[in-house]
Each structure stands twice: as C-alpha cells, then as structure tokens.
C-alpha cells in the first residue's frame, strides 16, 4: 500500500521507555468498517502526513503516534527522523529535539521525548517508514481489536521496530522544515467547524442552539475512540436512542445525559445514539491536540463550504513537499548514545513511567507532567528514594502512569493525596536539594 515491503527492512529503533501511549499509525484502515473494524490511524492526520513528507516518505507511511508523555528510543542504524504535531520537550544526544524539521540520527543515539508541551499528540516519522505487517490494508494499530501496528498493542520496553529503505540519500532528507503555516495547530478554546446531521432532527430547536452557542470542556474521559465533553445539556426531541447506524469520523453523538461525545479514529463503526453534527475532517487535527480540561465550541458550516475547506487543505497538503524549507543542515549531535541527566528505566510490566517535569536541580520539586488524577502515592515523605523509583501513580486519558524520582535522595515532602486532581507542572512533592 505504501510501496514498502519486507525486503530492505532493517532494525531501526529499540524502545527503552514506551511513554504513556505510543502506537504505530498510518492514515487508517479503509474498506473494512462493514466488518466492524475501526478505521484507526493517526488522530492528527495532517501532522502525521507532514512528518512523513519531511523524511521523504509517502504521506501514508507508518509512523509513531506519541501521546502526552513520550518514549525513549535508541536508534540502531543511521537514519533521518522528524517530529510534528504537539511540541515536545526532550533531547537527542544532549541537544533539544528539533520540531517540524527533519534531522539525521546516528546509530546508537538516544532520542528522549519526555513530554508533549503544546498539544497532546506528536508524530515521529522515520525515513522509509516503520515496517510492520500490512493487515487489512493498513499498518495502523487497532487497539480495540488488538491487531495491526506492532503486535496489535502500544509499544513496550524492549520492542525493536524496523524501517523500510529511505526514498533518497539521508543527507538530502535531513534539515527540511515545514513552513510556519503548518505548525501552529494548537490552542484552546478552539472553534470546530461542523456540518449539522445526520440526525440533527433528533434534537429540539433549543438543543441545537445550546450545541452551537455553548463552550464545552474536554472531560478526563477522552482517548483515541472519542472525547466526552462537559458543558450545557443538549435536549433531545423524544428518545435519545436510535437504531444503531454508521458512526463517521468526527460524529458528535449525544447520549441520554445530553453531553456530546466527539468520535475519533478508534471509534466503533456503528452506534445507537443520534449524531447532532459531524466535525469536518481538517478540524479533527485540532481536536487531536486538545487535552482533558481544554475548551472548544462548534460552528455550523454548509456541506458545500465544508467541502471547499477540505479541498483547499488537501491541495495544500499534496503540494507540501514542494514548500519545504531547506534549512541549514542539522548534522550529527555531539554525544553519541548519551543523554546527560537521562534516567534509565528498566520496565517490562505495569504502567508507563516518566521522570517528573524537568526542574533546575536547586529546587527539588517533583511535578506532574500533565493534568491527571492521583491514583496512589507510592512513597511516604521522609523516605530515601533511588533515581527512577516510582513516587506517584497518576491517571490521565484513561491511562495510568508513574512519575519517578528524578534522582537519588530523600523525599522531603508530599503535597498531594490519593484522589486529588493535579494540573500540569503542579508540585506533588519535594526532594532534598543537595545530593
């Protein structure tokens, strides 16, 4: 499908830490919804395609979708990579990771994507595309049915993934930048353009006004299947149940409680709630970068206008390759295979682990990397802890992850309790400041 095959594939990345939810995705699995198979694919399709263009791949090649907290990867061969979508904090060989710009990586180097800062989902494309089997016409991971991508599951520590042959010499693929206009895709609140229907007549006139006139907040109940929203209740005309029918990408279904749900890449193919509107596909990329707690609103456009918008963006995407800015070549980083201050984590089972957000050594604060709920406080104040030891078990986006000690020392104070909600960069504990 993407012009790749097993021939020419080589081992490319070893996963040292998987991150919160890192999956292999391409543009999705089409033609199988009639068998109940979700479409899957990168939630921010525009960012996925841009990342592929940067490294010289076809736009539908398989790449990694990184969610909120990123992976730590060792490269096993020389290649060119690019990261798009959410901006990241992290390093490659001791240097900050370039964003929206392709760069060369040497065998043995470690790419540490600690966290997505602006936005939620980052796309990491590798020259030649990730080489996983094509199942039902796609390399995308189908998490709900456990097939596709890398063994039908998110990446785990120790996984080794291959890549296909690059389309050009690596030197020609590195140092290419996406024009400015293709970068700033994140903000809150965002205004999403929708086409009303297919079941807009299942709602009262007032219900429609509420839907189009209100601001909604993304609830913690948000994942690749869909985002449940909090906000004013949308009134149904009669029953909130319909006979199950097709659920399109971006469908905004409203169950009995009147709170809308935007359906995304991993949605079920059919569903029994009426859909008041459908978010246009180009704007799904905006949704993809929103986190729980962020705000959005809806604006209705006609079908013809929606198609005009989609055609314009598609034409620009198809021409993106010609628009790439060739920047000064970003050569080899100084250190090979070493990240100063990096924490090595040996993890085989259990939740994803992340170091707490980077912090000047003098302060000793242990912070939450993203808005989350405290599931468990794993260490009492006053205890000695080792670098990399889990301190807090948090939950966000329906996933659990651990925040680990940034270094060895005494955990002086714990500021949160189980059940607390914590914001991004909120201080959860404090470690002694002098080693």
């Amino acid at each position, binding site marked *: 499908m993407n012009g790749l095959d097993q021939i020419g594939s080589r081992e490319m990345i070893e996963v040292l830490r998987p991150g919160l939810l890192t999956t292999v995705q391409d543009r999705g699995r*089409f*033609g*199988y*919804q*009639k*068998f*109940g*198979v*979700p479409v899957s694919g990168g939630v921010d399709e525009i960012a996925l395609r841009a990342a592929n263009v940067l490294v010289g791949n076809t736009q539908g090649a398989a790449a990694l979708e990184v969610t909120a907290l990123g992976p730590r990867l060792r490269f096993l061969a020389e290649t060119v990579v690019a990261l798009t979508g959410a901006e990241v904090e992290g390093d490659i060989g001791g240097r900050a990771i370039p964003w929206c710009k392709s760069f060369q990586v040497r065998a043995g180097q470690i790419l540490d994507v600690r966290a997505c800062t602006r936005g939620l989902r980052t796309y990491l494309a590798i020259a030649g595309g990730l080489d996983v089997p094509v*199942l*039902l016409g796609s390399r995308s991971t*189908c998490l*709900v*049915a*456990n*097939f*596709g991508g890398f063994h039908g599951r998110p990446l785990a520590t120790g996984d080794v993934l291959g890549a296909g042959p690059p389309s050009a010499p690596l030197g020609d693929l590195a140092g290419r930048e996406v024009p400015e206009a293709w970068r700033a895709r994140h903000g809150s609140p965002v205004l999403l353009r*929708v*086409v009303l*229907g*297919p*079941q807009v007549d299942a709602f009262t006139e007032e219900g429609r006004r509420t839907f189009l006139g209100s601001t909604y907040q993304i609830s913690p109940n948000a994942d690749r299947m869909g985002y449940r929203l909090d906000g004013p209740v949308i009134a149904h005309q009669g029953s909130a149940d*319909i*006979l*199950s*029918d*097709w*659920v*399109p*990408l*971006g*469908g905004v279904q409203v169950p009995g409680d009147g709170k809308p749900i935007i359906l995304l890449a991993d949605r*079920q*193919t*059919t*569903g029994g709630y009426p*859909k008041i509107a*459908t*978010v*246009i*596909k180009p704007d799904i990329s905006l949704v993809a970068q929103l986190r729980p707690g962020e705000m959005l609103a809806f604006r209705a456009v006609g*079908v*013809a206008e*929606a*198609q005009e*918008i*989609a*055609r314009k963006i*598609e034409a620009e995407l198809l021409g993106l390759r010609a628009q790439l800015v060739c920047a000064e070549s970003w050569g080899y980083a100084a250190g090979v295979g070493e990240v100063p201050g990096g924490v090595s984590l040996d993890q085989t089972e259990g939740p994803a682990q992340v170091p707490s957000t980077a912090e000047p050594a003098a302060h000793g604060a242990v912070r939450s990397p993203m808005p989350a709920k405290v599931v468990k406080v794993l260490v009492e104040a006053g205890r000695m802890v080792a670098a990399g030891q889990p301190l807090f078990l948090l939950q966000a986006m329906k996933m659990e992850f651990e925040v680990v000690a940034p270094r060895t020392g005494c955990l002086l104070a714990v500021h949160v309790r189980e059940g607390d909600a914590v914001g991004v960069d909120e201080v959860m504990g404090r470690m002694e400041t002098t080693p």
Partner: protein
Amino acid sequence: MGVRYLPAGERGLVVEFGDAVSIEVNTQVRGLALALEAARIPGLIEVVPTYRSLGIEYDPQILSFAEAERKVREVGAALDPGTLPTPKRVEIPTVYGGVYGPDLHFVAEHAGLSEAEVIRLHSQTVYHVYMIGFSAGFAYLGGLPERLHTPRLPSPRIKVPKGSVAIGGSQTGAYPAETPGGWRIIGRTFVALFDPLQEIPTPMQPGDSVQFVPITEQEYLRASSVQPGAETGSARARE
C-alpha cells in the same frame, strides 16, 4: 417514510431507508451496498450497511455531496435485486452449557424451560444477520424466539471469553474477542468470528442466515486443538 439522503460531514452520506428493524428494509440496505461496491464509482471509498441505513464515505476531492447523492440514486434506481449474490447460510458449531455457558441455567429458569429445551429452541432457529458492528466481527442477529428473551446481567462481566454465544434482551450473538460484556452466556464456539489475516475477516455477512449447531465438549476441544492457536476455526458455509 421515503428514503432520506443525509450529510455526515464533508465526506459522508447516510442513506436512510426507514427507522424500524425489518428484514425488508435491511434487504434494501444490503442491495444498495452490494450494488454500489459493484459499480466502482470513482471517489466512493466505502459503504457501511446497518439495520436500516447505509453509511457511505466518499472523497470530496472527487465528488460533491450533490454528485455523490446523484450517483447513489442512479445505482439505486438501476438495481435489479435478482442480480445480487445470494446470502450464505452459515453454521456456528456451539458447545452449550457447562463451563462454556455459565448462564444457560439462568436462561432456562427465566424461560420456564429445561436447559435441553433452551438449546433446542436456540439452535433450531435460523437467525438473520442485520449488520456487523459494535466491535470487529460482532454480528447483530435477529429472530431470537420471544421465549428466550432474557434481561442482561445487572453488571457486565469484566471478561467474556472469546467465542462466547450469548443472549442479551431480545438479541443473541457471539463475541469475536475477549471483551467486557453484559449478555447471558449460554455456550461457546471455536469458530474465528474475526480474523484480520483473511481478506474477508468475518464468516458472517449482512443478509446471511445463521444457525447455531450443538456440538459436544469433545468435538469442541478437538476442533479447538487442531486449529493453530486455540479457538480459530472456520464456520461451515453451505448453499
């Protein structure tokens, strides 16, 4: 109620034939789905047949909404039901009761029947596949005898074993994968209800007739063990 053509975003069209569960309406949906696939209209990406409507995804680079609707109407108008492929008759070998069907006893008690009578009634009925949805390979079957209608579990099980044959309210079906589920489990099949390695990944298609065929535990175990990987067999199809 006439056929309605509803927009679903800038690349979706829903053709709604009615709003009730009926084999006549469902047959119209199936007919249009097959005819559209055969017509190979440029820009038409895929069709998703459901109980009473057909979801159509198309490429707005190639077709406007009005053009998509016109093409679909043309194919619908030219449709000759006699040319459509005949639905299959699919048999799903099922071991009833015991550890494979922990709720068979409850279903029997609720119906005021013996377990043997429940098995006889459930397996002698020929069911109609209305659609595949909810999860990969899950077939919505119609035709469960009223006597066997059974309320769902008060709270769903965390894990329903793959291949479980179950009853939920007025519906019956089989779970293609291990998932949470609230239906009453009465048996289990070794048939792979979803296999992503096959180009046609599900043994049942919309419009097919389905019958559950009782087998013994020995037959179930033998069939499960000869298959590569437990519980991935083939459904028996017959004309």
